[in-house]
């Protein structure tokens, strides 16, 4: 493999370019109009435009991307996550074009992409699944028939879209009278989001944790699982902080979960990097297969930190036919503890509203135990069209306590000016007693946020306000001084705001 096209953008494209460079492989970026000057375009060896800003006109255009890959002579395509990463047609189109897709075959993507088919795979592989209906319930199955199935499963239960993901097309049903409404809601949401209104029922596991197992599979049937990731801290079914290992998983349970995950992947001849998600019951013993993500996960760096394994390099090595040489006894032994915070361009104090725009200043933390996988830089713009995640901040420590302390410090060093970010939320989150004691389940954060009723995460204290008053007054003094206003012509206008910037203060330099 000599040249890899990365069919993605942002931090994950940058991550893959780095792996290519580490391996001496030429990297090819693709870009939409607004991404002409994005970090991944600047870092790659080659870069090609693929269309307009909406993803449907560029990053989701299989035809255009395959065309570019063919013309530029790429012999591999890395889909990243999101966009086309779990699209079996894209995997098939790569195969048809004679280009290696860095992920599983279209058949495996399709099979594991259907929640009901994936459940069947898991059951056949001997993995526990949440009790539920066996197949998909298509649009024409009457509610009465579904109600009967529901009785046999028992309440509370979940109505889930077969094609679902990210919490969409999903309803909790506490009692029989809620069932019809839930079916209607889930079906219409699923039809709108995925073009498929088929649903299925599952028993609801209360106060469960979301625990997932990363794995790699080579082309020769070897599957190696890694130490589990704890992803229970979710806001509206979106992970916000991940860590590994889970404080709730004992070494004995780890062996059971990782074996179950490996068996599932092995049974479908899984190749490349993938992740099996489980629900862990509050008893800390019973776990249930939830779904498989047939791609690299956002949170893969925490696994890299505790295993020392470069997962993206292995995706490439597997695709070019190498055998997995990792010792599975070692990959499930965590070396220390790692935590990831997803740094998102959003305003946590305004209901987590996305906050795209121009980044006028950016300082990323570094130092011992800190890794920042970013996709942007000072002077860049976070576009309005895509996922607002700007970087993933990862902290490693010998213990969970040390990793947490380093993460707190790194968050306090992070400086982003021009847009709002999730950093205040993360700083608040890490100080919650439930985080410190690792006592949370997947419903914890939404419950807590509801209770807080939008209270600011990092309210300014009296001392902060006093400093702000001083700074406001000083900036006025300096702005008004004849000496500084002359220098002020050097101030570069930002979009809607302007920096009280260096030029005015040149005179204050010692």
């Amino acid at each position: 493999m000599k040249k890899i096209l990365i069919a993605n953008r942002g931090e994950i494209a940058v991550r893959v370019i780095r792996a290519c460079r580490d391996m001496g492989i030429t990297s090819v970026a693709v870009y939409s109009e607004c991404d002409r000057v994005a970090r991944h375009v600047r870092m790659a060896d080659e870069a090609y435009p693929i269309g307009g800003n909406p993803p449907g006109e560029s990053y989701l255009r299989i035809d255009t991307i395959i065309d570019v890959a063919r013309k530029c002579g790429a012999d591999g395509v890395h889909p990243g996550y999101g966009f086309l990463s779990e699209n079996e047609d894209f995997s098939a189109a790569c195969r048809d074009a004679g280009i290696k897709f860095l992920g599983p075959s279209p058949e495996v993507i399709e099979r594991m992409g259907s929640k009901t088919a994936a459940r069947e795979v898991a059951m056949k592989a001997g993995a526990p699944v949440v009790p539920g209906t066996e197949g998909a319930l298509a649009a024409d199955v009457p509610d009465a028939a579904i109600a009967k199935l529901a009785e046999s499963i028992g309440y509370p239960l979940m109505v889930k879209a077969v094609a679902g993901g990210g919490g969409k097309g999903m309803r909790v049903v506490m009692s029989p009278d809620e069932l019809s409404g839930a079916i209607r809601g889930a079906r219409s949401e699923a039809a709108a989001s995925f073009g498929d209104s088929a649903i299925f029922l599952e028993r609801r596991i209360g106060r469960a944790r979301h625990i997932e197992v990363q794995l790699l599979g080579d082309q020769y049937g070897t599957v190696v699982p890694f130490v589990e990731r704890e992803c229970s801290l979710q806001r509206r079914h979106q992970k916000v902080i991940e860590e590994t290992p889970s404080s709730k998983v004992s070494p004995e349970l780890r062996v059971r979960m990782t074996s179950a995950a490996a068996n599932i992947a092995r049974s479908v001849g899984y190749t490349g990097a993938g992740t099996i998600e489980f629900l862990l019951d509050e008893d800390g013993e019973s776990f249930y297969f939830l779904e498989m993500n047939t791609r690299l996960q956002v949170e893969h760096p925490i696994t890299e930190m505790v295993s020392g394994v470069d997962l993206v390099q292995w995706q490439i090595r597997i695709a070019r036919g190498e055998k997995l040489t990792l010792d599975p006894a070692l990959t499930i032994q965590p070396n220390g503890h790692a935590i990831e915070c997803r740094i998102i361009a959003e305003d946590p104090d305004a209901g987590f509203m996305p906050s795209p725009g121009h980044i006028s200043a950016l300082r990323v933390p570094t130092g011992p135990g800190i890794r920042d996988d970013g996709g942007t830089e000072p002077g860049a713009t976070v576009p309005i069209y895509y996922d607002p995640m700007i970087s993933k901040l990862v902290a490693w420590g010998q213990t969970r306590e040390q990793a947490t302390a380093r993460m707190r410090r790194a968050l306090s060093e992070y400086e982003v000016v021009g847009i709002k970010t999730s950093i205040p939320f993360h700083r608040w989150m890490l100080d919650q007693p439930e985080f410190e004691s690792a006592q949370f389940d997947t419903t914890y954060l939404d419950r807590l946020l509801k209770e807080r009723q939008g209270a600011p995460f990092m309210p300014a204290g009296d001392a902060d306000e006093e400093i702000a008053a001083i700074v406001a007054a000083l900036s006025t003094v300096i702005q008004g001084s004849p000496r500084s206003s002359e220098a002020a012509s050097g101030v570069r206008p930002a979009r809607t705001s302007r920096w009280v910037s260096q030029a005015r203060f040149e005179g204050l330099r010692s």
Partner: protein
Amino acid sequence: MIYDVDINGRTRRVAVTRHGQSFEVSVDGHAQAASVSVVNGVWSLLLSDRPDAGNPDAHIPQRSYEVAVVEAASGELTVHVNGRLVSATVAGARGSWARRGHEAGASAKGPQKIVAPMPGKVIKVLVKAGDTVAAKQGVVVVEAMKMENELRAARAGTVKEVKVAEGATVEAGSVLVIVE
């Protein structure tokens, strides 16, 4: 020079005296020495209390802060300090130097238009015409940038018009709901 600075609905009176490269500042009577230097648009601010004339050897901590300041077109300043964002408006300089471009922001009156901040899809409409809404109450949920975002009323009022239906695709700046 004396400035009235409005922060979070409270007015702080700040007196500033310049001594060459450093300043003496007093906030509501709390006097401190301030030193300011700027690199790459970010301030380094050192603050220390005034020496105690009775005990000149007393420990006077000189605290170090990194501060960023962004000025909106309205003149409102956003001060980044200790990871917090504090909005501050200087109400008027009383000294010899005139403050340029000082105007108070538009007052909070008239109908509120709740607009889509970015292109997206309307997932839920939470109110209908005639409903009474409280300040900060959610009115519409728009999916954009892969997230569901609840748009809220800034102030309490009555819904005058809902201009979009669930499932509609909206452009940035589209008016979704009008509240009076």
